[in-house]
């Protein structure tokens, strides 16, 4: 989440809203956001309904896998990063920096 925060200006300049999602409570996520200096919303998927709908619930963690989706204005997924590849969001930030995304 810190990596997205560091790139927030680039993302916002490309009309991109960042939303974090975990299965923690909304209150825990707010405390987490404050602790690490994240200013975008961290959403609570309490119970994991959305995590399961996205097919990324992992039994081993009893929590989501680490996955980043870049979703276009048409609602379609433009980029994905999964597990270790999702730690550095460079691919998504670079996609946002491309001029076509601003249209």
């Amino acid at each position, binding site marked *: *989440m*810190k990596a*997205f925060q560091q790139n927030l200006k680039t*993302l916002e300049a*490309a*009309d*991109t*809203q*960042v*939303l*974090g*999602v*975990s*299965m*923690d409570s*909304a*209150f*825990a*996520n*707010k*405390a*987490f956001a404050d*602790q690490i200096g994240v200013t975008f*919303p*961290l*959403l*609570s*998927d309490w119970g994991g309904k*959305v*995590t*399961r*709908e*996205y*097919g*990324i619930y992992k039994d081993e*963690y009893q*929590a*989501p*896998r*680490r*996955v*980043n*989706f*870049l*979703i*276009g*204005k*048409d*609602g*379609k*997924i*433009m*980029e*994905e990063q*999964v597990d270790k590849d*999702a*730690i550095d*969001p460079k691919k*998504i930030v670079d996609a946002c920096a491309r001029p076509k*995304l601003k249209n």
Partner: protein
Amino acid sequence: MQKKYSGILVTALLLAMTAAGYAQATKEGSVMPKVGDTAPDFTLKYFDGNNLKDVKLSDYRGKSNVVVAFYIFAFTGG
């Protein structure tokens, strides 16, 4: 007689629809969407420090791109 059969037919149809719906839900629940797919819509809670708010993915449709970043747990690095 005809009425009886139509009742059975309706019941069978309902059962078939339920089964199809369940199969669809199970399928969607287990497969991660791919690039080019429409992202499944959701409404999730967000606490802004004062109020609990609903954030709905489809509210951004036509307005802005969205990064949805799933992470494993709060307070664990990421």
